[in-house]
């Protein structure tokens, strides 16, 4: 038995049999999450001697336990966290007992760091939700529970912590547990295991406490060692998102990825989505070896029996049990950015292997975190949770998140800051991509352009109120009209009073206003007309959204640039004066921002130049066409 090789092989064999449980600790601020993890690691003798020495030393400087060991300092790894005695970002710790291996994510309790809690929860199988026995169930307890439920966590431990503060009183404990159950009934948990605890003193963490003789349930570690771990998708049909087309030379072409559900065997019939082409699996290869089959969670390369159109972002599935391809779906959204998410605004949507253009086409509602009531809203603010319709610019293969986390999850990325602004979980498709193939018409835009004798254009004027957009557009239209060019002006007068009369001036309404104008301009351009749009259109995101509707040379952004002082001095309609008095809220330049274009096709200096000069500048740009 003393032979190290035998001993190591035995060890490796036992290790291979141990299951891995990923869990998080969450709950409100000061409920003792970090202390609990520190205590667990310490009691299970999983902290090395040099770490204990460092901990003792630091507890003297930053500790909150009067010189005793402050276990929270073991996991609060950032200087700012130790200074303030709070957790800001999620910390991952690794430990093992004789029964299981664990990865624990210690997540922050403060509302402002909810995104970091969601980060930790997204990869967890189980949540330990802490409640301070002297405080009871708080808003953050509910928010975290709700996020855990949305992210698909099925089993939770309700750790009623700091029982020492309430003298281990059973009634206090019972009433907190009852209170929590009332709320959690509306969630999708399969089990809730309540445990009375003191993380600080170690009661019911690893050792059963003598102070809670009335409690007969498991200790926390007992719960964690036996709770059902990650449910494998191995019994579901085969799916593998393609991460990479593996083409080392002309003789080999394979598709690499990780199997996210089911099993694939040599000879199986598979289908490539979204194309729908089918093929047989010729070989399943690793770096050196070839395999007869690959199962869920295995990373492999599939070689198919024939040439098919298949690239990164496509999904290879069992031929007879494909998944849906859709370009519009309903999803749960957790908003994670300071900048609010607006209905109608465009973002990047990233799934595990692909990135597409996406628009939040409708915010159906957001939740009141305490009651889970639905609140109507046109925007999502930091830490809001809601349900929205997401539209993407091409069909993507997906599965509902409840069936498959990998094929049902996405993040939204801001197109300007590149920040990850939201996490999404797909519920179901609202529109299958195959149903929206546009019908090809014989008389098309180019036919109409030929008849008109000129190309269609969209001249998009943007600038402050009073900068001269309408006057310049008006003068330009007269010039073009004389030359026999078919034109049409869209401006506040003909749009605000009709098509958009239901919209006000809040950010969400302004975005929707511009979206509709852009869509109308698109129809007019399709009719072969030169469209002049004259709107403040203050946000870059919406102007770019409009631009993406058109071909490259079709969209001409014209920045009518007049300094605010000059525009306010002109104040033709008396609007600035009204806004300054506070009678006109959300007025661009006064209490709502104007985002100037970075690279407009035409930049007019309308503060100094005359209308004629400005018009000439546009005519010169457009040329003789």
């Amino acid at each position, binding site marked *: 038995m003393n032979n190290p090789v035998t001993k*190591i092989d035995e060890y490796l064999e036992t290790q291979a049999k141990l299951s891995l449980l990923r869990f998080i600790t969450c709950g409100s601020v000061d409920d003792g999450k970090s202390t609990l993890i520190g205590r667990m690691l310490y009691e299970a003798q999983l902290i*090395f001697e040099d770490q204990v020495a460092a901990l003792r030393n630091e507890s003297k400087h930053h500790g909150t336990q009067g010189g005793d060991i402050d276990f929270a300092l073991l996991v609060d*790894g950032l200087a700012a966290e130790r200074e303030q005695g709070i957790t800001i970002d999620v910390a991952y710790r690794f430990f093992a007992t004789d029964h299981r291996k664990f990865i624990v994510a210690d997540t922050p309790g403060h509302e402002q760091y909810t995104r970091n809690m969601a*980060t930790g929860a*997204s990869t967890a199988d189980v949540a330990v939700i802490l409640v301070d026995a002297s405080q009871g169930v708080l808003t953050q307890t509910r928010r975290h529970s709700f996020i855990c439920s949305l992210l698909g966590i099925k089993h939770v431990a309700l750790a009623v912590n700091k029982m020492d503060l309430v003298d281990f009183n059973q009634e206090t404990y019972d009433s907190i547990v009852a209170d929590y159950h009332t709320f959690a009934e509306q969630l999708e948990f399969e089990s809730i295991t309540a445990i009375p605890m003191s993380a600080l003193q170690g009661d019911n963490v690893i050792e059963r406490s003598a102070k809670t003789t009335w409690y007969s349930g498991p200790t926390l570690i007992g719960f964690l060692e036996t709770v059902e771990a990650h449910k494998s998708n191995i019994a579901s049909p085969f799916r593998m998102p393609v991460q990479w087309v593996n083409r080392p030379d002309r003789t080999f072409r394979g598709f690499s990825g990780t199997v996210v559900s089911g099993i694939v065997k040599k000879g199986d019939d598979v289908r490539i989505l979204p194309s729908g082409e089918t093929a047989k699996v010729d070989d399943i290869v690793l770096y050196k070896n070839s395999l007869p089959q690959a199962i869920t969670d295995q990373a492999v390369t599939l070689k198919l029996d024939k040439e098919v159109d298949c690239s990164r972002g496509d999904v290879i599935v069992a031929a007879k049990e494909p998944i849906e391809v859709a370009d519009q779906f309903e999803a749960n959204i957790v908003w*994670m950015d300071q900048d609010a998410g607006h209905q109608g605004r465009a973002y990047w949507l*990233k799934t595990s292997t692909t990135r597409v253009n996406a628009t939040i086409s409708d915010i159906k509602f957001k939740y009141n975190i305490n009651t889970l009531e639905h609140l109507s809203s046109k925007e999502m603010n930091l830490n809001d949770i809601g349900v929205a319709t997401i539209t993407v610019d091409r069909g993507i293969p997906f599965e509902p998140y409840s069936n498959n986390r990998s094929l049902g*999850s996405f993040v939204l990325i801001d197109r300007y800051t590149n920040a*990850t602004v939201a996490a999404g979980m797909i519920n179901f498709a609202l529109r299958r991509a195959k149903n929206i193939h546009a019908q090809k018409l014989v008389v098309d835009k180019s036919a109409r352009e030929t008849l008109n004798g000129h190309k269609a254009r969209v001249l998009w004027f943007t600038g402050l109120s009073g900068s001269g957009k309408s006057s310049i557009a008006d003068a330009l239209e007269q010039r073009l009209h004389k030359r026999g060019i078919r034109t049409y002006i869209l401006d506040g007068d003909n749009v605000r009073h009709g098509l958009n009369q239901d919209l006000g001036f809040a950010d969400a309404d302004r975005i929707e206003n511009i979206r509709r104008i852009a869509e109308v301009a698109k129809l007019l351009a399709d009719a072969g007309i030169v469209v002049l749009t004259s709107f403040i259109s203050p946000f870059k995101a919406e102007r770019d959204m409009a631009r993406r509707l058109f071909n490259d040379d079709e969209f001409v952004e014209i920045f009518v640039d007049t300094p605010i002082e000059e525009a306010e001095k002109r104040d033709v309609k008396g609007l600035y004066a009204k806004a300054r008095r506070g009678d006109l809220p959300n007025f661009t330049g006064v209490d709502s921002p104007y985002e100037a274009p970075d690279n407009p096709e035409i930049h007019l200096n309308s503060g100094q130049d005359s209308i004629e000069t400005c018009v000439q500048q546009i005519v010169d740009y457009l040329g003789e066409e």
Partner: protein
Amino acid sequence: MDLIVHINPEGIEKNINPFDHGSSLHTDVMKTQGLIQALDKYGFDAAFGGARRDEEKSRAKERVFSFRNNAHRWDPKTQRPELWNLYNGRKSPGESIRVFPISNWTELDIWQYIYREEIPIVPLYYAAERPVVERDGMLMLVDDDRLKLFPGEKIRTKRVRFRTLGCYPLTGAVESDADDLPKILLELLEARTSERQGRAIDTDSSGSMEKKKQEGYF
């Protein structure tokens, strides 16, 4: 594959070394600044690293895709959310991303993998008789005459190995008899100290690794 070697020319000019200038200055000039210079010079979008979350507590806080601004700084207080296995690789010109693919591996995982896949490793990981001096509780290898002895220090030959390899001489050796992989694994299973206890730069001050990482260190 191209191997690009970059050494901070200022550091060479001023002969910055850990023996005369201490670990802190040497790390900053030769590692942090050297790395930043190379990243800027070649304009890399991403740099891969082998750091793991179980190594050290500020690393336990780091994302797999860890964003750096155009000055290569890490801002641990505003990290991008990182859900599931969805990594946001978007960035503006000048910004970059440090990528840590084995974030969730532990020290034991690494050695088990090396053992199972029979991956060759450098001999310094195996125990052998080597000349060392004891300094600040660390066993420093005496490799050549760059290491100047302090009064009272004596070179001794001990059977030592390196549990982790950073730069010389800032990584301390450990006394060990583990001269093959099974013995190394056994030693780790029974270890009562952490992997990074031999790393001098971790203990410059509390929060030391975090500070270095904020400044651009890997």
